[in-house]
């Protein structure tokens, strides 16, 4: 907006307004051109009293008004359409061709919550040349002072009561859950998604409580409420549907039988491997030993399931009804149960990975020693190393160990592959469930609905457009004497923009797997998946 020296922003709502004084703010700073000062004048509302006003609406022609003592004085004409009659700055009339007259919609700017985030207001900046943040700040602070929002008291009170009740009930369990969660995380290196989800839900309700207490119903609050409502609805629906098909006992039995089937399949697989299938070059004594060891462990697993049956039945009953808190909690519980049921597969994977890691590291070091080299950890490189000189039996050890490892390599690799594939499929299932939980947690339905209905609250972008002649209703062809007429419109900001802006405490970040870690852990077996 450099073509003129003065930017004048006027609300569209003034059209057809009767005579009154104009209230607003203005600022000035040095313009880009030399020796000229740029001004920005924001008109926010009208008032009958004339103290601290910046202008006057005068519909009667040729009526002069006194500029009083303010430095700027704007005279507008509002009948048929808003137009600028005259503008005086510091007592001097300003030629109208140097004025940019911008029309804006007051409601849009006041109700929008995202626009001040996109154009943040910083004091002491060059306001007259960087008009938009200053303008937004003036309009919104003016609205806050003079138009406190009227609230629907009863609804708010009800919401407040419900939220307080919930937080009071869940105060003790929250502390327990947090302690348990941190214990699991630090000592057993396991992040339970059920506990995470519950804690996240409590955090979100606390955020709602903060917002309601502050008395404003922001986008965040509305979004959280919608999300929790949808979640609980879905959870109740799922529980009703499942309970109409089968009872909790039936579900638990089917889950148990599925786990036993998995154990039996693993047992069969191990039996097949111990028979040294052709083409796989397995070493007979070693594969028989490994297969016997793992089969015994599978047998222990089945025994464990049978022994723990009554206890787990009670736990399952409790968990299904806790899942009424929301569909995301149910999915999280399912994910945790999956992990618990396949605990022994996790053990197998650890055994296989450790053996494999031992083997690869032996292979690497002995291969280097085989060629007469050694890893130098000080300089992080491979050096030549001659073991002991001409007569030396030390090289015999290297040769023997290397040969043994090379020939035993197929056997341990096959066992490791079997367990790593099982582990990866379980991890995939877990990742899928975590993705569902995340999608339920960042449910953007509220924002989408607002966007579709054209609500002013999601408007976050500003664009200028010139007003055409038809809108002015006045022949302005060749009128170089009048001000430049612009219209300031708002546009809804994009969904991804709003979603990425959200705070990480209330909305979890997208679960993204670390691919290089996964690949290196599969190849070398050093870090466990």
């Amino acid at each position, binding site marked *: 907006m450099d073509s003129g020296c003065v930017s004048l922003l006027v609300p569209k709502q003034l059209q057809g307004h009767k005579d009154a004084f104009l209230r607003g703010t203005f600022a000035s700073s040095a313009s880009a051109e030399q020796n000229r000062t740029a001004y920005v004048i924001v008109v926010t509302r009208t008032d009958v009293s004339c103290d601290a006003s910046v202008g006057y609406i005068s519909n009667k022609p040729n009526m002069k008004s006194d500029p009083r003592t303010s430095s700027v004085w704007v005279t507008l004409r509002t009948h048929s359409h808003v137009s600028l009659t005259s503008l005086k700055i510091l007592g001097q009339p300003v030629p109208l061709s140097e004025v940019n007259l911008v029309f804006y919609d007051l409601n849009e700017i006041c109700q929008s919550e995202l626009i001040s985030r996109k154009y943040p207001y910083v004091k002491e900046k060059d306001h007259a040349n960087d008009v938009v943040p200053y303008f937004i700040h003036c309009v919104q602070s003016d609205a806050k002072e003079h138009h406190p929002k009227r609230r629907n008291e009863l609804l708010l009170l009800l919401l407040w009561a419900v939220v307080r009740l919930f937080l009071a009930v869940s105060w003790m369990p929250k502390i327990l859950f947090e302690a348990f969660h941190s214990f699991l995380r630090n000592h057993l290196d396991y992040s339970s998604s059920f506990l995470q989800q519950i804690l996240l839900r409590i955090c979100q309700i606390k955020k709602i409580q903060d917002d309601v207490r502050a008395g404003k119903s922001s986008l965040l609050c509305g979004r959280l409420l919608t999300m929790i409502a949808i979640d609980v609805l879905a959870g109740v629906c799922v529980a009703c549907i499942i309970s109409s098909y089968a009872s909790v006992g039936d579900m638990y039995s089917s889950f148990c039988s599925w786990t036993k089937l998995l154990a039996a399949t693993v047992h069969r697989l191990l039996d097949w491997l111990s028979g*040294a299938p052709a083409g*796989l*070059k*397995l*070493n*007979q*004594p070693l594969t028989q030993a490994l297969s016997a060891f793992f089969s015994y462990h599978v047998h222990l697993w089945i025994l464990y399931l049978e022994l723990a049956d009554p206890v787990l039945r009670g736990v399952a009953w409790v968990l299904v009804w806790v899942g009424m808190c929301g569909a995301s909690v149910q999915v999280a519980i399912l994910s945790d149960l999956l992990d618990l049921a396949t605990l022994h597969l996790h053990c197998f994977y650890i055994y296989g990975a450790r053996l494999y890691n031992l083997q690869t590291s032996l292979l690497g070091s002995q291969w280097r*020693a*085989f*060629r*007469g080299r050694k890893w130098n950890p000080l300089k992080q490189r491979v050096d030549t190393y*001659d*073991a002991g000189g*001409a*007569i*030396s*039996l030390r*090289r*015999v*050890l*290297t*040769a*023997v160990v*290397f*040969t*043994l490892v090379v*020939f*035993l390599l197929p056997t341990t690799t096959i066992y490791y592959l079997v367990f790593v594939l099982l582990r990866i499929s379980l991890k995939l299932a877990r990742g899928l469930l975590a993705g569902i939980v995340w999608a339920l947690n960042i449910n953007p339905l509220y924002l989408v609905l607002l966007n579709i209905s054209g609500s002013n609250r999601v408007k976050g972008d500003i664009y200028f457009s010139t007003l055409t002649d038809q809108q002015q209703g006045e022949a302005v062809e060749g009128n170089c004497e009048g001000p430049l007429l612009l219209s300031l419109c708002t546009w809804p900001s994009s969904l991804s923009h709003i979603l990425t802006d959200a705070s990480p405490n209330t909305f979890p970040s997208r679960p993204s797997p670390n691919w290089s870690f996964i690949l290196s852990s599969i190849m070398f077996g050093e870090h466990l998946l």
Partner: protein
Amino acid sequence: MEHHEWRRVLWKKQPFPDNYVGDSFLRVSKKRKELSLCEACHGALSVTHEICSCLGLVVIFFGISESHLNSACVLTLTATMGVGGYIITRTKLITSVRDDVKVACFYMVLIACASPIIKSLTGSVATDSINASTTFLLLLRLAVHDYGTEVAIVNPTVSHNVGLFASVCLASRLESDLDVFTLMTVAVTFFTLFPSFRRYFQNQLGYRWSMVVTLVVAVITVSGVLLYAPHLLLLFLIALFVCNFLIPLLYVSLQGYKQNIYGPWDEAQIEGR
């Protein structure tokens, strides 16, 4: 008058004009060490030794696996040879007797413990693969063995370890634990201890005694091949002929064509390894 020989120095007043260029100006040297046929044949003796020890291992393997040889006898023979060689070379060794005995015991125990594992190592690998890989590995051992020269391809560690790898491949085909232990001990003796013994007595004895010893070794190997692995006889004789007569003849006749010029443009060579 050029009665002085021009030298490429600045501090001496020489009776030559300033722009005189003498013969020794470029410091070009044409190194050529001519070998006679006798020297070439002498060098080929080490190669003969190696070929004989590799084939000796194969012969003993065939003998044991077809039960012509008694593994206990072979074991005692190898042990006596090893101890005998150790006593002969005792004067040259720097380590004490106690340390050597400790090391030898440790490795005996190691091989004894590894024998049952080695026995079942290649149960699922086909015989053809074993034969092919053993041949290849023994050839590789011959190729990179240290025969006394310092060439880039020489890598004594690889040659020794490859030899032991080949012997493990062979030993895994045998039936009983004692057989495996015997073959492994023979392999260690031939591949670890014998080369250093050979280096010792080649330094001590003269050219003639080396020839005699080589002849004895070759005769023993030929008789072993005749007895236990007759299908390898032709191969062995061809190898001996090629190694001892053909290659030295070829080398001596072709070395006249070698023209290497070394000058100040070459990279500096660091002496020693």
